[in-house]
């Protein structure tokens, strides 16, 4: 408990690692893992907000898909307290996340960082949206093509026995001579 108090005091002072009069580095000091604090020490409402922000993107390791901010477990509470201490000591948000990543792996981040294969995770929704938009746009353009008669009307006749009747219907309905589409668009048959 005394040791914890010393650690808290050290963290609060923003002291770098290895200050304790020991040959070993200070127990569980984040500095050897994430380097010296990079940001300004936070306090008050800013500290509360930043703590919540980091805890919200930190996975509770003993839960199913819950963040440290949302989990009521002891482990999550302890992790949140450590986040708070680190931010109060001047470590920035990324350093706080990196500290937990060092022991739990990338798994502990609820938002995969933009590196390596993770790019796919971030890019896939945008690419999917683009591809979908392209398909929709093409379909819309096709259906709205001007001057194009109903495709059924120009479709070839399946049954040769019915052809004379169909051509007669088309002649009556569209006024096409002989039931065939007039020359200017005749080459655009499907």
């Amino acid at each position, binding site marked *: *408990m005394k*040791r*914890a108090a010393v*650690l808290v005091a050290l963290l609060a002072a923003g002291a770098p690692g290895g200050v304790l009069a*020991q*040959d*070993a*580095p*200070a*127990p*569980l*000091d984040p500095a050897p893992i994430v380097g010296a604090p990079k940001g300004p020490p936070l306090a008050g409402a800013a500290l509360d907000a930043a703590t919540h922000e980091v805890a919200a993107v930190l996975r509770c*390791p*003993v839960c199913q898909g819950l963040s440290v901010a949302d989990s009521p477990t*002891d*482990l999550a509470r*302890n*992790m949140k*307290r*450590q986040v708070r201490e680190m931010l109060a000591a001047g470590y920035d948000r990324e350093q706080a996340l990196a500290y*937990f*990543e*060092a*022991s*739990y*792996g990338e*798994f502990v981040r609820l938002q995969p960082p933009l590196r390596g294969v993770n790019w796919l995770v971030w890019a896939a929704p945008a690419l999917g949206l683009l591809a979908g938009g392209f398909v929709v746009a093409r379909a819309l353009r096709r259906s709205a093509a001007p001057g194009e008669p109903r495709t059924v009307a120009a479709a070839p006749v399946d049954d040769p026995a019915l052809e004379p009747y169909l051509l007669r219907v088309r002649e009556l309905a569209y006024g096409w001579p002989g039931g065939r589409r007039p020359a200017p668009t005749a080459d655009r048959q499907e």
Partner: protein
Amino acid sequence: MKLNRRILGVGAVLTLPLVGVLVAALGRDLTVRSPLVGRAAPAFSLVPAGGGAPIGTADLRGKPAVVNFWATWCVPCYQEHGVLTRGAAELRGRVTFVGVVYEDSEENVTRFAREQGASYPSLLDPDGRTAIAYGIFGVPETYFLDANGTIVSKYVGPLSEARLAFELEKAGVRR
């Protein structure tokens, strides 16, 4: 027919990679590997249950070590308790064993030691700092350190005699 073939093609392009990932992942060990393996064991210095001077990573140097995270409320920890106490007694002087208590009280731990026996100290980690530094997901989880204090392996779940011997071998302990 032409359109159907195209839809089929697009569908194949979309689904085949997913199926491929699924097939590739079948039968693969999907447990999260500890990023600590191969690195220096995170430093700690903790008071043993029942009192005494703090024991820390500095005390583990020079000999292979077993760091076992456990709790009295954990049933698999009961299962492996005999394996660990026997192992620690047999390998006394050659391997250092320490337990680290995970989310449990000193009272529970001392009572457990009285009733079940103990051959190595269990250290108290009241605010869970050590458990977090070691990336503990649950108990029991056991780290094996070589004589230089480097983590050579992590085992999740209750240890059997054979598993203990196997993991200790990685840490440089010959039978």
